[in-house]
């Protein structure tokens, strides 16, 4: 892999930009690999990268039915944070944030992790009590957090609605300073490039049609490009996890919903952090290009439709203009939907699938992007060693049998 750097940009500029090569190879699939990763989104590509980097398993194929990062990796609102309640979640998501902090240098690809702060607003005294509880939990779990007064919130986001007639006056907030946003496509492309350089075969436009099982063990997949076999398989197919599980012959406690997101026309910088207003269910940040990126809660009805609809658009955008009244003159540019896999306790599932030889990494709900480095790292550990990393152990599928749920929906009030 030819390294990217400012020096290289200057040298290429001087020689007519003729020396660039594709960021990853486009090989034809072999009939057998040491490992197959199903799903070429962030989690899948990261799994392949860490298999090669941490476990010296580079005879790996990543199989993607569409294009790289075309699922939720390319459809999310790029927020990265670890402001969770339970120790298990906090440890998992903060591990991810820490990997993100070094990711551009690890991959030699600028993923633009911008730690501009994740700010959750409160609108009342009871809200503030809940925020204090969350703040305390975060500090106990070793995660950076600050409790803010309304004045401190105003200093960070002066465009917020501090008028006396605001429908939901701002009381204060909790800030995670290390939270922020990343460049979502760059995460997929960066992992793809680094994995490919370590020998991973990235195969796009290749759909898994069925699993090949021998003596009860999964030994490969039938794909639209023919059969591909492997010693071990891992699936990271957010949005279609239960569809794939059905193909493999097991069930997941997952319901899939559409989650919508929105981006405005580019404007000069007005937002400084990622702001979430629970009263409206709307959150927003501003991309480096200048677009306001915002989203809200899930659609109410389970669906596999990767598209937006009008009622949610109205809910989210009216929330945005309540939060930032001056921004109601900004025009919407794009609006889209992705499919998220939601578990009963709103925590992910990482571990053996129940079918021998096949591991799963799924159920991240609305928050998979922030967990890409951790999800890939832990899934690679599972596939390489056959056993859990300490961090992924609590997230095994078996918790739904034993009852050891990690109920982040109830505890930190995430809206699903």
């Amino acid at each position, binding site marked *: 892999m030819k390294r990217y750097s400012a020096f290289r*940009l200057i040298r290429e500029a001087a020689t007519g930009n003729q020396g660039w090569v594709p960021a990853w190879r486009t090989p034809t699939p072999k009939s057998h690999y040491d490992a197959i990763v199903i799903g070429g989104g962030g989690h899948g590509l990261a799994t392949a990268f860490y298999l090669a980097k941490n476990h010296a398993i580079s005879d790996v194929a990543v199989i993607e039915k569409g294009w790289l990062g075309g699922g939720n990796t390319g459809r999310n609102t790029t927020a990265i944070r670890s402001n969770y309640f339970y120790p298990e979640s906090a440890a998992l998501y903060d591990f991810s944030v820490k990997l993100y902090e070094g990711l551009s240098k690890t991959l030699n*690809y600028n993923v633009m992790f911008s730690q501009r702060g994740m700010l959750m607003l409160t609108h009342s005294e009871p809200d503030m009590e809940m925020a204090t509880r969350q703040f305390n939990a975060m500090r106990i779990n070793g995660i950076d957090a600050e409790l803010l007064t309304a004045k401190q919130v105003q200093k960070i986001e002066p465009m917020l609605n501090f008028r006396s007639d605001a429908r939901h006056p701002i009381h204060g907030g909790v800030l995670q300073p290390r939270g922020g946003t990343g460049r979502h496509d760059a995460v997929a492309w960066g992992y793809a490039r680094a994995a490919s350089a370590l020998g991973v075969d990235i195969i796009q436009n290749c759909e898994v049609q069925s699993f090949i099982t021998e003596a009860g063990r999964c030994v490969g997949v039938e794909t639209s490009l023919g059969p591909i076999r492997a010693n071990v398989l891992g699936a990271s197919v957010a949005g279609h996890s239960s569809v794939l599980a059905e193909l493999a012959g097991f069930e997941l406690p997952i319901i899939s919903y559409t989650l919508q997101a929105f981006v405005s026309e580019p*404007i*000069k910088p007005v937002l400084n952090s990622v702001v979430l207003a629970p009263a409206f269910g709307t959150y927003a940040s501003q991309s*480096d290009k200048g677009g306001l990126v915002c989203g809200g809660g899930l659609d109410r009805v389970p669906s596999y439709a990767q598209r937006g609809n*009008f009622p949610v658009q109205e809910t989210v955008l009216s929330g945005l203009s309540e939060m930032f009244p001056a921004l*109601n003159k*900004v025009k919407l540019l794009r609006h889209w939907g992705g499919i998220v896999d939601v578990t009963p306790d709103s925590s992910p599932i990482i571990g053996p699938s129940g079918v021998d030889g096949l591991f799963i990494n799924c159920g991240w709900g609305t928050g998979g992007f922030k967990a890409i480095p951790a999800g890939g790292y832990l899934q690679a550990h599972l596939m390489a060693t056959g056993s859990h990393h300490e961090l992924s152990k609590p997230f095994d599928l078996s918790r739904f049998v034993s009852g050891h749920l990690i109920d982040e929906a109830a505890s930190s009030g995430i809206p699903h």
Partner: protein
Amino acid sequence: MSSHRIEQKGRIDRSQVLTFRFDGQRYTGFEGDTLASALLANGVRVVARSFKYHRPRGVCNAWFDEPNAIFNVTLRARELPNCLATTTYLEEGMEARSVNAWPSAQNDLKAVLDFAHPMWSAGFYYKTFMWPNWHLFEPMIRRLAGLGKVSPDHYDDYVSNQRFAHCDTLVVGGGAAGIAAACAAADAGDDVVLVDDHRELGGGLFQQSEVEGHTPEDWIAGQRAAFEAAGGRVLVQTTAFGVFDHKMVGLVQNAGFGRAPRLWRMRTTRIILATGAVDRLMTFANNDRPGVLSLLGANEFLARYGVLVGREAVVLSNNSAGNQAAAVLAAAGMSIERVDARDANLKVLGSTVENALRLFDVLCFRYY
């Protein structure tokens, strides 16, 4: 008023002169002009800068398909960001500012970035700014990006009215095809709504000298009267922006500058899209230079605003459909050099657009 205006042409009211400013400079236009047509009539060529390299950009289309002419516009102490100059109708006292250019689009200091353009190849930002840390570079890059500034003022009455409506047939696009479809459906007894985003129905018909033996104005007025007599409803200055579940179409009805547009939820059983065609950009080196316009745009500026975008022009197309449009421009006084992209004579122009623009005012293209 200027050599760019053609007498007797256009849908403008020459008795009402309007004054406005663009990047601080005072200009005049007429009632019925858009900001873009008024600027073209005044011979203003550079109206914007490109997002990354800050290359000079001019108006190149006449309606929603214009990619360049985006202004912050202030009127009656109300500033709206990123207004498309080709769809913003001129009003007395408008103050337009180019976006992301300083001090003006004509003289933009940030154009210095263009000198180092080989450095900023596609995706350059993924390849650098990693050492020591992205946070060191990000604030500067954020300030360089973005288009218009958003005023922190909140306009209390900038709140959209909402309408809920239904019809049997919704026709989107009020040109010849849309009018014909709407009339046919209304005659057949349907409850029909016809929407068009212009101020008046007609679409591309104003480019024609006659329609079925009438002037375009008379023909359109006659069709509209018949349509409305059959129970049809017409919504102008209304854009259909999405077809949602169960054939609900979102419509946004422009209420004039500075006023929040009205939102319609139109539930339908049939949707007819008669939205017409736009010219696609022809690919050649420097096709983004000011003075390069779409042929459709040039014809619309003449037909709707009486503006001849240039006196001497090269008209470039890759098909024979450009001939009639070029003939209309020629009849209005444009001296035209016709070039067919399929023809080897393309080399006559030289290798660059700059050569062509040195010889001619404008270069219009048509590409299907």
